[in-house]
């Protein structure tokens, strides 16, 4: 079975000369399909940097990153974009919905950009919104939705194209704890029902307690990688 994602001795540095920052150093990690992995670690430990590499938004300074079996090193910006469009879904801390598009259009956008043919894009987007509990909200604009609802739209947008990997960078950080728990429950349910692979960063203990696997980063190194029951 092809790993959803695999990192081999990855290093990522920012800047140059005296101001160089080693955001990641010697990171190796394999994430299997259907896994629900949480990246933990204090602020500045390299979580976002790692997620950006897995999500093909960026490329490592050294080492290699495989996503869905493909080596991203040496890919052009166009190839990376195509890989993201097809195989990777994103959920952001501050939702990042396109404000001039409705909930349904935000979800449809992901389908339009992906390289595949989806049949009736509208129906598919609405069905996806219904499955994240937003039945009847498809015509609303982001500013007409609560934070929790916006994050559900973002999750629908990430999952609608059936990606190999869903990347969520601190998805509950901008939500109150109750809403955060609901959103996390939704993510867990989708992980089980749809078999979607999730990599999720957080420093929220509640989120970590729900994970099967917690990878902890500190100063750009993986300091622990534990499976939980």
């Amino acid at each position, binding site marked *: 079975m092809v790993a959803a994602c695999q990192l081999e001795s990855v290093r990522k540095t920012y800047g140059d000369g005296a101001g160089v920052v080693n955001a990641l150093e010697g990171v190796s990690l394999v994430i299997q399909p259907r896994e629900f992995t949480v990246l933990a670690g204090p602020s500045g430990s390299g979580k976002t940097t790692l997620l950006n590499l897995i999500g093909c*938004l960026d490329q490592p300074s050294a080492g290699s990153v495989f996503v869905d079996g493909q080596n991203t090193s040496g890919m052009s910006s166009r190839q990376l974009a195509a890989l993201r469009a097809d195989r990777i879904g994103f959920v952001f801390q501050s939702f990042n919905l396109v404000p001039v598009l409705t909930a349904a259009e935000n979800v449809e956008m992901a389908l339009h950009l992906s390289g595949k043919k989806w049949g009736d894009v509208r129906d598919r987007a609405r069905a996806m919104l219904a499955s994240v509990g937003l039945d009847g909200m498809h015509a609303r604009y982001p500013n007409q939705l609560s934070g929790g609802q916006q994050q559900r739209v973002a999750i629908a947008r990430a999952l609608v194209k059936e990606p190999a990997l869903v990347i969520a960078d601190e998805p509950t950080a901008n939500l109150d704890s109750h809403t955060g728990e609901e959103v996390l429950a939704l993510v867990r349910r989708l992980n089980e029902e749809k078999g979607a692979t999730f990599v999720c960063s957080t420093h929220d203990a509640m989120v970590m307690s729900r994970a099967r696997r917690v990878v902890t980063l500190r100063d750009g190194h993986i300091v622990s990688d534990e499976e939980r029951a």
Partner: protein
Amino acid sequence: MILIKLAARNVRRNVVRSSLSLVAVIVGTMSLIVGHAFLAGLRVNVIRSQIDVVSGDAVLQPLDYPDERLTHPVDALFTVEPDLATWLDSSTQAWTTRLMFVPTAIHGPDSIRVRGIGFDPARDEAVFPRDAWKVVGHVPKSGAEGVLVASSVARLLSLHEGDQLTMQVRTAAGAINALQMPVAGIVAASNPWVDRSAVFVPMDLADNLLQAHGTISHVATRLADHDEEAVDAFATAFKAHGGATREVSTWMAQTHDILEIDKMRSKALNMLVGVLMAMSAMGIANTVLMAAYERIREIGTLRALGMAESQVLALFLTEGVVLGVVGSTIGCAISTAIVMYFTTHGIDLSASIDRSGGMSIPISTMLYVAYESKWVVLAWTFGVGIATIASVLPARMAARMAPADAVRA
């Protein structure tokens, strides 16, 4: 499809900013179209007035005939030989003779120098149409009926139809002569060359006054075709028939100085339009740039969703182009409406001509602008082109942002 929707909605996101750059494009296109329509109208007006009121298409006059204001020497008058008459009959649509002179017109205590126009009552109208004339009384058919006085002259001398007007001149031989003649009518010709100073005197009476013995100062001709080449060709032949002591002057030569000024006006207008268009280009570039800066995180999101650089480029380019297309279209539509209105509803220039003291500029006091579709096409293309070019750099900046940095913003 959804990309077009997104681009269209983005344009409406910052209404104030978009409106400002729209206004800039609208003003730019409008100044080009309306400005040139007025200049073209002025040009047509000058040419038509010259032909219809002053000289016809070409005039035969004594050598070195002066073209200063209110100067009509009578020391080199001539007669139309039968040969020339025959040739003119066959070569023109109409021709007539005029005897121009500068008498002192006297009524009661008042006297002023006027432009005496000795005209042939039978032939004059065929060369100098009277469609725009408003006459109180009537146009005299012979010297016995008296003279036709221009409105300003009548006002200055308090003349009314039926009054007696005294005209005093130096005759062709240099003696002083004066005659009293009745006012048959008062004319307003909508043309300052006539209205400010003319007194139309039937040829027999003018001849008597000047003791001209059948000589005249001008042979004015009207051709079927006013086209410059046709008039030039005619003028060359006319000169050959006109003899060595006379010259031919065409409407082109007579309007040359005024039309040179017009060309300078046209250049000045193009410079103004250039400045306005540069301003709208900066407005649009700024709008697209601000849009890109405001939406860095959104660009990052779209890139994360897999949007290619070229699609981001297209998205922002579209924003600028939409502004250009909408602005140019509105500008062209408004200007076409304005221009169309003033092609049928003239603008009355008499007040401003009076103020400028334009004693005898041969232009009609009613200005009808001239609609030329080429300016509309040019303005639209120019507006859209400028908007597109102005959007390229900011759109490229948006497209080339590193997605990882953009989503972090």
